[in-house]
């Protein structure tokens, strides 16, 4: 079995500080932004935003904690939750204080109730300040402007309540940028001074001669130059702070370390990294910039082991670092990422989890030439999340037939310790999938994963639908199923859609039912993407991303911002979570009404509309007799394949003004639970408000023939169609992995699934008894990590219905 290494004392201390953190809502960024915006009120956003960024870099507090070796903060505290009033980020905090939900304690701060799953506080001064500028931002924030006018279809979409666009919801324009992998390799190998010079030299060359398209480019390069000035300032200030602390430090060891940190940062402020420490610190500094520039664009790190190994290799050869020192830097880097969690109101927490920052890290896989790319840093990443029991960031383990057994062993040992991590990815499916959509071979081989698990190019791709509404881009397919058999009326609320499909009892064959589902799906997707395209257009004007555009390939070359299509690859996308519920519903109709004639379409229709009340015997018969997806039964699997194919075909018809590649996905945070609460009963016997099936997995408890049958069923559709990513969740009883032979068998099973066309799998290794015990005794299980679908979390921090959903999934013994 793989043996994990010991952890240094200060790393453990920092880890526990993060576990026990109290988030401090903080107004520093808000103050600097408000001042800067007032000064530049009438400057266009493409310039105003970089100007603010430069102000922020000059003025923000520089904090270096005694336990830190990798530095960089979003605010003045280690656990700052930063305010983004331009997006209405913290209005809910002010509201909570105003309503008396947060109360003043002895420390002079307002705190949220202890019963909440995460602890927050705010100083009275910051609360007062935030309140004082609320009115200023009310009419200036992007959301207000965008909500003021929308294309016609928004109203229908909103009233139907089958997507995140809903009445009394947040603004449809909730997020800038979205998820992506920035060009970290470029940043640490180029340096800010060279980037500044590149922008400035274009400006100098075109002085007094800005004709035609030049004006757009001029604005872009001007923004880039200002941004680089800010970046150089910020990194230099961190260096200066380290020098200052070193001078005052009495501990010789720490003093030397601070001097080393100062030297690295002062160098990095203008230049490319020279060694491993600078490479890791350089990635972190850029990560901080992305996150203070704008609200939660959730930049994923991508292939951390590939960016940094060349530096470590050189250092080791020169004898300037030990493996232990390198491991500590990696530990510190991951802990730092965990410091960036900002908290969220309850709706968001229920859907995307507590403590999740979506800064995914991708490791292993193959290099540009197709050779195995596993290196010592790949192992270090597993060491970090395994030993420190970190549920975040998500780690993606890329595998190919050349991936060495040693790292597989290490990955499985990690899965045993940290529920759901890593995600196992199959290069043999993902790379052909990217090639199919026009990615060059070297870029396809250099993919990474973002968000839940969407597949993108590393530093070459702008895959985010601008202005994507949180939590993620999806429409509710369970409701579409219901509407398709109910003449376009959502049985949940009685709202009629503009598309009339007829009633189930008027349909005479399964083909007619499928056609109704297809039409309804297309209709809803059309409206949904129309709204998204509208938001995308607005983002190009209101929210260009000059920090990201410095690094994403294509932008600096073309003089075009990434939000406007400057990147080498452009795409957007979303997900259909719980298609197994739709597929099982179709199978039920086919089996019960048309093939076996065990009930009439009218009876089944009435049962669904009654949410199965009074039809329990019929429901039991369906659960027993009807074949379900996940049992390697072609009768049921063909409906799932039909759903996947149909969804993919619909996605191929969608485009925005920036791109025409819609990446279809079968993933979904924990949205299947949230959607279940807003999806009426479905023909498969699922009752409102039970969860839908999660992501691409079979419906909870309907798979009865073991994991190999799930694998075989899951290989029934072409997985290369789903660049948005696929989440197949599997819960394993810990006894499976109790010895080497069991672990080897799990590896073989995973590889067998990949041989058959599987793209991804994730394992929770925990038994139901432990989960039930943890529900009752949360204090004993603070470090128990489980994966929902798109993220992992501490089990005890999940809502009760999410916890129950995990328990309800089949657990496999061997």
């Amino acid at each position: 079995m793989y043996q994990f290494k010991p952890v240094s004392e200060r790393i453990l201390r920092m880890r526990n500080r993060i576990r026990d953190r109290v988030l401090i809502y903080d107004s520093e960024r808000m103050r600097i932004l408000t001042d800067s915006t007032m000064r530049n009120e009438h400057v266009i956003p493409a310039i105003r935003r970089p100007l603010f960024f430069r102000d922020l870099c000059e003025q923000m507090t520089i904090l270096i904690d005694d336990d830190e070796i990798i530095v960089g903060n979003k605010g003045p505290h280690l656990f700052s939750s930063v305010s983004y009033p331009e997006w209405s980020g913290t209005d809910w905090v002010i509201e909570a204080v105003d309503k008396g939900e947060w109360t003043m304690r002895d420390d002079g701060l307002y705190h949220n109730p202890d019963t909440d799953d995460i602890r927050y506080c705010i100083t009275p001064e910051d609360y007062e300040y935030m309140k004082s500028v609320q009115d200023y931002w009310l009419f200036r924030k992007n959301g207000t402007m965008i909500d003021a006018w929308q294309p016609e279809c928004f109203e229908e979409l909103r009233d139907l309540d089958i997507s995140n666009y809903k009445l009394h919801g947040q603004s449809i324009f909730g997020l800038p940028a979205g998820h992506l992998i920035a060009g970290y390799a470029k940043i640490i190998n180029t340096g800010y001074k060279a980037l500044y010079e590149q922008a400035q030299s274009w400006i100098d060359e075109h002085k007094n001669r800005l004709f035609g398209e030049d004006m757009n480019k001029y604005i872009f390069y001007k923004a880039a130059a200002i941004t680089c000035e800010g970046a150089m300032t910020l990194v230099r200030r961190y260096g200066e702070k380290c020098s200052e602390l070193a001078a005052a430090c009495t501990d010789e060891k720490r003093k030397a370390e601070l001097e080393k940190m100062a030297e690295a940062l002062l160098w990095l402020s203008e230049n490319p990294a020279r060694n491993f420490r600078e490479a890791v610190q350089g990635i972190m500094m850029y990560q901080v910039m992305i996150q203070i520039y704008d609200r939660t664009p959730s930049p994923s790190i991508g292939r951390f082991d590939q960016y940094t190994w060349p530096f470590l290799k050189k250092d080791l050869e020169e004898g300037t670092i030990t493996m232990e020192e390198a491991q500590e830097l990696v530990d510190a880097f991951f802990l730092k990422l965990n410091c960036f969690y900002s908290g969220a109101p309850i709706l968001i927490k229920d859907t995307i989890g507590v403590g999740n920052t979506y800064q995914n890290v991708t490791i292993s896989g193959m290099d540009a030439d197709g050779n195995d790319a596993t290196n010592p840093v790949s192992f270090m990443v597993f060491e970090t999340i395994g030993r420190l029991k970190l549920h975040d960031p998500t780690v993606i383990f890329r595998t190919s037939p050349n991936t060495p057994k040693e790292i597989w062993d290490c990955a499985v040992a990690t899965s045993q310790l940290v529920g759901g991590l890593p995600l196992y990815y199959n290069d043999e499916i993902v790379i052909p999938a990217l090639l199919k959509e026009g990615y060059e071979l070297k870029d396809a081989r250099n993919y990474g994963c973002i968000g839940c698990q969407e597949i993108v190019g590393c530093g070459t791709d702008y895959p985010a639908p601008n202005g994507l509404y949180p939590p993620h881009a999806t429409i509710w397919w369970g409701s579409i199923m219901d509407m398709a058999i109910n003449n376009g009326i959502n049985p949940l609320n009685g709202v009629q859609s503009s598309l009339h499909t007829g009633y189930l009892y008027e349909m005479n064959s399964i083909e007619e039912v499928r056609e109704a589902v297809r039409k309804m799906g297309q209709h809803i997707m059309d409206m949904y993407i129309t709204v998204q395209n509208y938001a995308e257009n607005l983002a190009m004007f209101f929210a260009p991303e000059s920090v990201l555009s410095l690094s994403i390939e294509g932008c600096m070359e073309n003089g075009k911002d990434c939000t406007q299509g400057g990147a080498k690859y452009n795409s957007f996308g979303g997900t259909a979570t719980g298609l197994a519920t739709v597929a099982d519903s179709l199978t039920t109709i086919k089996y019960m009404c048309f093939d076996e004639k065990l009930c009439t379409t009218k009876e089944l229709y009435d049962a669904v509309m009654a949410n199965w009340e009074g039809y329990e015997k019929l429901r039991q018969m369906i659960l027993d007799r009807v074949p379900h997806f996940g049992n390697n039964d072609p009768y049921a699997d063909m409906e799932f394949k039909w759903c996947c194919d149909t969804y993919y075909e619909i996605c191929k018809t969608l485009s925005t003004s920036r791109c025409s590649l819609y990446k279809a996905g079968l993933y979904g945070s924990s949205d299947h639970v949230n959607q279940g609460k807003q999806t009426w009963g479905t023909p498969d016997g699922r009752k409102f408000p039970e969860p839908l099936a999660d992501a691409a997995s079979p419906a909870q408890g309907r798979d009865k023939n073991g994991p190999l049958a799930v694998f075989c069923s899951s290989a029934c559709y072409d997985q290369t169609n789903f660049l948005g990513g696929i989440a197949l969740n599997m819960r394993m009883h810990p006894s499976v992995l109790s010895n080497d032979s069991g672990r080897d068998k799990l590896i073989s099973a995973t590889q067998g699934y990949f041989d058959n066309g599987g793209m991804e799998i994730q394992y929770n290794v925990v038994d139901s008894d432990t989960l039930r015990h943890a529900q009752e005794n949360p204090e004993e299980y603070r470090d128990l990590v489980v994966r929902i679908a798109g993220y992992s979390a501490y089990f005890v921090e999940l809502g009760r219905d999410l916890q129950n959903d995990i328990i309800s999934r089949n657990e496999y013994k061997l």
Partner: protein
Amino acid sequence: MVYDIQPFSVQDGPGIRTTVFLKGCPLRCPWCHSPESQEFFPQLSWISMRCVGTKICESSCIKACPKNAVELGETSIDSRSGESIQLVHVKRDLCDNCGECTKECYPHALFICGTSYTVEEIMKKVRPDRSFFARSGGGVTISGGEALSQIEFTLALLKQLKAEEFNTALDTTGFAAWKTVEMTLPYTDLYLYDIKHMDSERHKQTVGVPNEPILDNARNIAAAGGKLQIRIPVIPLFNDDMENLKRTAEFCAELGSAVTSVQLLPYHNLGVSKHLRISDTPVAEATPPSEAKMEEIKELFEGFGLPAMIH
């Protein structure tokens, strides 16, 4: 007569395997973890946890029984809804295992254990898993009950599996005529072979049959070039004294290179609750052996140069 087909079974031989459990056994081990595998005929089985209560199913099973053998039983709390539900109870003396009630029981709380399969029906179930077997060095295990008691079917299945180049294992008590065992030799890659006690009298007292045929067959298999994975259930107060275990280890060592490994299986009490599925009479329960004890036994076997593992 098959009572279960278990895919992704990793305890029954090397690699990922599908195990086919045949029903019926000449032995009567009190600790048997699959009591439903002992009789050769189909039996009505009852799992209370699956019952959704007579209110929901409108007492379908009670109405369906032609012998009036199903009656109202205890009340229980449904683990899904948390509501109180009315369970049923099977009067074993009246039940003739006709299975009429099971046709009405959709949640399979009542079900018939024991189904007839053709070789081809089984092959259809194992073929899709071929790539998983290949990856892990696994295959198909025929287990029981006692598979050798249904030699005609077992042999036909083994031949077909070999014809399609599946790795095969036969999980057996070894209690059969040598000429029966001999027939399986060309088609069996590995015997998972139980040895329960070295003293024949004690063996007969406890499980109902003497051990001589079992030990002889093991020697013969080894002599004929067959491979054996010896499985020893460690049962407190029956075979866990070091003297008996030492003799067992000596016996295994004598079999020489035919023994690929010795699997030490600590007694567990899962069989107790499974027994209640087919009977009202509870069976005796013992305390599982401690980890330290198991380690001690493992060391004993290793002392004889045998590759031993626990579980």
